[in-house]
């Protein structure tokens, strides 16, 4: 392995052996994230074997991903909350009240109060705006009480969990509200709520280019200050694997096809002509909820690692006193973490309401548990100061792969809950054990 000449002696963790350890160290891959990817792969492989190869099909994996998307989106924000030594138990109720708000805005307020026609193409934008605003406001209120008044976050968000869920009842007198908006529905995924073949390939290409650019730029940044850079072979490997992965996911998503019945119906409505020999075979591509999740993950990771806001959240979590003494406005930082949560809940609520094309009393119930589990499985510690946003998203996928896999195999919910609980304990226990050993 060649290293740039001025690699400082005793550089942490770089044993120059040709082993997996050495490989990982040279490529500087996060061991934990890598381990979680391996675990996810193992779970999917196991279910595939148990089901005789029926499990790991494009359509099924898309179902799994869409089911995980809402929890994953919220978990990106929960990482910041837990890192800064707080908690948010109100996310489930927040999702519920915002979902019901979406339903009421689209079925009642827009036609009756605002006078917006049902065929106005941007109804979904207005509804989404309402939801995000509501989420941000409730988040700001909770954040204010926690950061400026000083009431412990457990209490404030527990109160939020109870009172906000009560409000949902008053919104619709307990009834389900359905029939939202055909454009809004697309946010929930499904064949029509997906990017389609061409755009999926384009997105994959953009992703590949972005990965290569990031590698080149990172190398350039290091060179600028004469820092040690990764060996060239490692850069090529990462770039190559990254691109392959992105293109592979795109190919996999494009292997999922529209149900022929739907294709025929739309063909008839849109006048595409007769059904071709062998069927329409229209690729669905990546569903919109996953695109949303991708965007959220990128933005949140960027905020956490490359912006002062993220730095301050982690500093506060590591040593609140140090953050204060460094002159950081810690209260404003904490408040912002809750505003972010509110906005993320609004996005997750949009996915949930779109999937159901309506809202019920119980949307979002128990979300907080799954979100916290995802964050924790993904490496976020309740001691504060340590957390990973990509890890939380992976954690959400790991937990959902179990739930979906067990559902697929016909294991009922009590069984699913038993497994979920055990996995949570094992994952966190394994992580704690590793940390103890390492330090």
């Amino acid at each position: 392995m060649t290293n740039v000449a001025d690699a400082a002696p005793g550089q942490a963790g770089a044993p120059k052996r040709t082993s997996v350890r050495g490989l990982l160290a040279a490529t500087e891959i996060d061991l934990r994230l890598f381990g979680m990817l391996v675990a996810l792969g193992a779970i999917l492989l196991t279910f595939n074997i148990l089901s005789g190869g029926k499990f790991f099909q494009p359509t099924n994996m898309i179902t799994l991903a869409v089911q995980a998307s809402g929890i994953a989106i919220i978990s990106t924000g929960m990482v910041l909350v837990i890192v800064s030594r707080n908690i948010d138990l109100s996310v489930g109720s927040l999702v519920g009240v915002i979902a019901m708000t979406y339903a009421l805005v689209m079925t009642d307020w827009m036609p009756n109060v605002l006078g917006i026609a049902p065929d106005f193409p941007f109804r979904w934008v207005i509804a989404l705006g309402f939801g995000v605003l509501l989420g941000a406001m409730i988040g700001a209120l909770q954040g204010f009480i926690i950061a400026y008044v000083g009431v412990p976050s457990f209490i404030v968000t527990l109160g939020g969990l109870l009172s906000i869920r009560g409000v949902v009842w008053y919104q619709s007198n307990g009834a389900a509200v359905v029939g939202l908006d055909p454009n809004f529905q697309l946010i929930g995924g499904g064949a029509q709520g997906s990017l389609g073949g061409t755009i999926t390939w384009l997105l994959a290409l953009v992703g590949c280019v972005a990965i290569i650019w990031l590698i080149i730029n990172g190398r350039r940044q290091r060179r600028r200050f004469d820092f040690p850079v990764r060996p060239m072979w490692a850069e090529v490997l990462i770039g190559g694997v990254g691109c392959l992965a992105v293109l592979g996911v795109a190919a996999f998503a494009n292997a999922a096809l529209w149900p022929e019945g739907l294709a025929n119906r739309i063909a008839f409505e849109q006048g595409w002509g007769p059904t071709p020999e062998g069927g329409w075979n229209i690729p669905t591509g990546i569903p919109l909820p996953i695109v949303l999740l991708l965007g959220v993950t990128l933005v949140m990771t960027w905020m956490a690692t490359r912006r002062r806001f993220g730095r301050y959240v982690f500093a506060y979590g590591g040593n609140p006193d140090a953050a204060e003494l460094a002159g950081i406005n810690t209260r404003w930082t904490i408040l912002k973490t809750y505003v972010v949560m509110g906005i993320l809940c609004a996005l997750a609520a949009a996915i949930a309401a779109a999937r159901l094309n309506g809202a019920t009393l119980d949307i979002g119930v128990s979300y907080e548990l799954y979100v916290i589990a995802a964050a924790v499985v993904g490496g976020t510690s309740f001691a504060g100061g340590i957390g990973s946003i990509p890890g939380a998203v992976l954690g959400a996928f790991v937990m959902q792969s179990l739930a979906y896999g067990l559902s697929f195999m016909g294991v009922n919910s009590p069984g699913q809950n038993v497994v979920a609980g055990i996995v949570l304990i094992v994952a966190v226990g394994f992580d704690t054990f590793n940390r103890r050993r390492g330090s």
Partner: protein
Amino acid sequence: MTVETGAPLVEMRNINVAFGGVHAVQDVTIDLRAGEIVGLVGGNGAGKSTLMRVLSGAHPADSGKTLIDGKAVNIANPRDAKHYNIETIYQTLALADNIDAPGNLFLGREKTTRLGSLDDSKMEAETRKVMGRLNPNFTNFKMPVKSLSGGQRQAVAIARAVHFNARIMIMDEPTAALGPAETAQVRNLVRQLKEEGIGIFLISHDIHDVFDLSDRISVMYHGKIVDTIEKASVTPDDVLGMIILGLKPDEVTETDKAAIELRG
């Protein structure tokens, strides 16, 4: 040693701080000249750290005035203190364990790119320069400071205080965690800073350090200043007497001395 005429660099007049039923700082007046080291000593709970926290912005005084270069200032928070070029090395170091050395050095004062994002590379480069002068063996710039030794952590805290053009420094037990070699290094650094005209408040339990470095010594006892004297005019025993008994040298009786020896 440069003798400054005119207004002192820092003057704290009639400072009072009380919390939780404890009157931690009682009507304390203290000053510091440029290029001077004032040793601030006293027993546990004497009020030294609290007094310095007023100056560093960590804790507001209940009453009293702070003047810098003869002008009254209001130091309401750590940001204000840094604005007046007051840098502090806290006894606890006040480092965020989960963040690396550059991150800690620039905590709250991060360098940003044109877009407002963190410029980690630039901060790392500057940290390498600063740490290179202080501790040439330090190489761990990417790991969280939690994995550093006590001496290395101290070096980061010192580097942080030194890097930002301080005129006034507060050092609270700067050699507490250090071995002899590192302690000598810190002592050299302190002398060097003094040469540059920086005024330093030095809190230390180590009488030898205090006598070695200070120009004047202020002794606190139960929140009050016992006396502020020129180092040259007292002995370590005199100072010990002030610390333990709260009495000036000429007020100490033979019985008191005996009591100290028995306790010692």
